[in-house]
């Protein structure tokens, strides 16, 4: 077997450390304490670096707080309320408002929330939850029934059709989130307002779908 010098080994060291092991380099390493020491040191450095990498730290909460503030200042993200209305508001703004279906569902929802709001002892979570569910479950069922009746309506334009259904899926996700929040904090007025708005948005969307379906008949 050909023997190599320390300089030869050093020239091959980079690829050796990458796993490219030659038999003549191995033979040199067995007989050369200097090169063996070098390889051991480099492996030790790599090993210590790996264990260092296993530890990850988390930045303090101030980083996200100031980042978010900066993003809001620059208009890159919208505050929660604005985002909530513009998700759907912008889309609806470009469409004519169908009055009847929307007004029908809106009145139902508004009435139900008005009934469920006045509670003399807000600390009683069970009562709040029960009241919320009592008032919203019929609405939920009503919305589902309305949605099922619209399922057969399909717009002639597949792009508009897909957009309507995609928006419906988004609203449904949003409703699910709001329902979860109300479930967790039934006494939270803000959560209940959000759920109300979510139902309102779905009512609007279903109304739009109705109108589109009727127009295509």
């Amino acid at each position, binding site marked *: 077997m050909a023997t190599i010098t320390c300089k030869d080994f050093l020239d091959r060291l980079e690829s050796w450390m990458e796993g490219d092991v030659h038999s003549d380099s191995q033979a040199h390493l067995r007989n050369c304490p200097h090169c063996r020491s070098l390889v051991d040191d480099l492996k030790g450095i790599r090993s210590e670096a790996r264990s*260092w990498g296993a530890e990850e730290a988390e930045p303090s909460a101030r980083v*996200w707080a100031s980042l978010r503030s900066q993003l809001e200042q620059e208009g890159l993200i919208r505050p929660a309320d604005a985002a909530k209305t513009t998700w759907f508001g912008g889309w609806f703004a470009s469409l004519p408002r169908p009055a009847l279906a929307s007004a029908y569902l809106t009145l139902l929802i508004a009435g139900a929330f008005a009934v469920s709001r006045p509670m003399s002892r807000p600390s009683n979570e069970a009562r709040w939850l029960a009241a919320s569910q009592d008032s919203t479950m019929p609405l939920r069922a009503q919305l589902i029934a309305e949605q099922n009746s619209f399922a057969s309506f399909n717009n002639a334009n597949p792009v508009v059709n897909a957009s309507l259904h995609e928006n419906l899926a988004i609203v449904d996700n949003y409703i699910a989130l709001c329902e979860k929040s109300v479930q967790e904090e039934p006494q939270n007025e803000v959560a209940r307002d959000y759920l109300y708005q979510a139902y309102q948005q779905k009512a609007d969307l279903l109304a739009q779908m109705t109108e589109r379906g009727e127009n295509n008949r």
Partner: protein
Amino acid sequence: MPEAEAIRLAQQGNAAAFERLYRLHNRRVYSLCLRMVSNTAEAEDLTQEAFLQLFRKIATFRGESAFSTWLHRLAVNVVLMKLRKKSGTETSLDEMTEPDEDSGGPRRDFGTLDLRLSGSIDRVNLQRAVEQLPPGYKAVFVLHDVQGYEHNEIAEIMQCSIGNSKSQLHKARMRLRELLHEAVRDKAREDRKAASAESGSED
């Protein structure tokens, strides 16, 4: 919310999606910054700057590269810019990774280093040595050996060739070995001084 969905919603300005992306990646980006600058306040500022740049450009993200690779490229650039400003010079990557002999670049006559480092490579010594690396070496070493990136990913992050990444990593490790040897020799010298001072005071 899955990452792809968060990216899509963040491109529409959704606040929750931005936060989701931040929570998914903040530890890794912050750890990278901290290892590069060794100062928590500075690392936090750099993390914030990296995410700010990311979110400013997120509308242009088309998924040609992995999102995390894109983010890390921004983070590395932010850190390297900071280190360049600190050193007061506008230097290229090559200049940052190829120091000349006078400034302590990796020597190839390693035979003069007889000491073995075994037992001396602990976290504290390694961190001190990494702090002294030129920025380019430091970036490649931290990305590969510490953060666990492959050379093809580093090439994408650092905008260099895979061969260049391998070469810089090797030079970084060799330079670290020299720095660790220097630390061992300094320690031995200090121990000798302390021992002789002690024996002098006894006389």
